[in-house]
């Protein structure tokens, strides 16, 4: 792990607007994040923990540019950050086969011919440890764990260097969880990735992450290495989270 940043979130404040009614007004603004400030360094897995509703997913959307911050700025040092979602049932297009889904990012990129695309798809499929038969399957023929592997493959096929994982194992059985976490760890080494790993499950964060951010009501209340935060929590809120996870 080097001290080179891949993502800097600088004093970001923001939220979302409820849709305007009949084009009147701009809708009601709900501030979700307050002065959020942190850096993801090259090669690390940074955990983001907090109860549901504290703004973890809003932060993810903002980092990806899907929501604009009201104040502050977000600086990416790597191109095309990608995300994998919690729900493996809505993250793959049900109309298409796995092969189509994996090839689509390369088609959009447009720089590779069909043979090269097929080669890259097969290579990535092997990396996420799925058999070739999966290529012809539609998402509804796959298990939850297999779907999550396909989602990871699709997110990584254009070789991003930074990946947001928004509760990627929360919908899976414990044994499948362990397999996916192991896969994410080995992919980090092989593909030189950095992760922002969002989870409400502190046990999972403890297993996987190097550092952790604790979020409460849209603020980062504590951050540090896993050892620092888990062994010597400074905040009452963190202590309560840890106690609840015992």
């Amino acid at each position, binding site marked *: 792990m080097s001290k080179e940043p891949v993502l800097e979130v600088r004093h970001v404040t923001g939220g979302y607007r409820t849709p305007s009614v009949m084009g009147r007004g701009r809708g009601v603004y709900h501030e979700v994040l307050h002065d959020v400030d942190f850096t993801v360094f090259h090669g690390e897995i940074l955990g983001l923990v907090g109860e549901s509703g504290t703004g973890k997913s809003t932060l993810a959307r903002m980092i*990806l540019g*899907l929501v604009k911050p009201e104040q502050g700025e977000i600086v990416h040092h790597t191109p*095309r950050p*990608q995300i994998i979602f919690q729900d493996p049932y809505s*993250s793959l*297009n049900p109309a298409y086969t796995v092969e189509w889904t994996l090839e689509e*990012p390369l088609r*959009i990129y447009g720089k590779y011919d069909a043979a090269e695309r097929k080669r890259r798809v097969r290579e990535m499929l092997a990396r996420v440890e799925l058999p070739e038969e999966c290529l012809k399957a539609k998402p509804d023929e796959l298990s939850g764990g297999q779907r999550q592997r396909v989602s990871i493959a699709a997110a990584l096929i254009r070789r991003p260097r930074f990946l947001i994982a928004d509760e990627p194992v929360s919908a899976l059985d414990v044994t499948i969880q362990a397999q996916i976490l192991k896969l994410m760890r080995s992919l980090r080494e092989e593909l030189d990735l950095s992760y922002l790993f969002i989870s409400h499950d502190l046990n999972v964060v403890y297993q996987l992450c190097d550092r952790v951010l604790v979020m409460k009501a849209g603020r980062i209340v504590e951050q540090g290495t896993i050892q620092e935060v888990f062994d010597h929590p400074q905040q009452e809120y963190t202590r309560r989270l840890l106690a609840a996870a015992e």
Partner: protein
Amino acid sequence: MKKRINGYLLAGLIITGILLLMTLVGVFYTPCDPNAMSMGEKFLSPRAAHLFGTDNFGRDIFSRVLKGSGTTLAIALATVAIGAVAGTLVGAATGYFGGIVDDTLMRLNDALTAFPSILLALLVISIVGPGKYNVVLALGIVFIPSFARVTRTAFAGLRDVNYITSARLMGASHFRIMAAHMLPNTLRVLLPAITIGFNNAVLAEASMSFLGIGVTPPDASLGYMLSEAQGMFSRAPWYALCTGGVIALLVFGAGLIGEGLQKIDREVA
């Protein structure tokens, strides 16, 4: 996956298939010349030589129904094609982009929907005049709003689904997202809408031709023939019954297909 026989879909496909086949044959071959008059044979009741009997000029009604249903089907299909394509474009754009585009186009849509469809078609006809192609144009325009509404709902529902967000992050263009990523997932609501639209088009064409604002001679559609039949209902009731019966069967068959498709949709969902 279990594959159970879908009774509605099967029955609908059989009825519609037979009618389509007969209509298609009717384009190239009819038992008698549909326009050949024979004064000695007028008002004949149905019999082997004239399955649906003859009319006041001694013309074979079966042959005329074959030709007429060809005209009706062609008009209905063209109408649905215009309505579905234009409606899907409008609905996709409004549902996908939302905001001001959505508000503007959907208010226009509401305004169009507020008029009874026949009245609106009448308005278009009074501007462009009657005739086969103008009927298609008029009905096609009238059918846009209902398709737009259905597709808008489907596209809006997909806008924030995770796989669409992923496609956006991959750098897919708006058009690519709508056409390649969303459209295939809206087909299960679009296809039933198309069959219902087809039914409405058959009925609307029949109503317009019956009212004399539809096709003009020498073209004959089922609706036009029904209006002819009305004048001789006491002398040749089989004319109205057979023509009306074919319209009813067409609508019934397509209705069953639509019902069957919706049933598949419910089972998948």
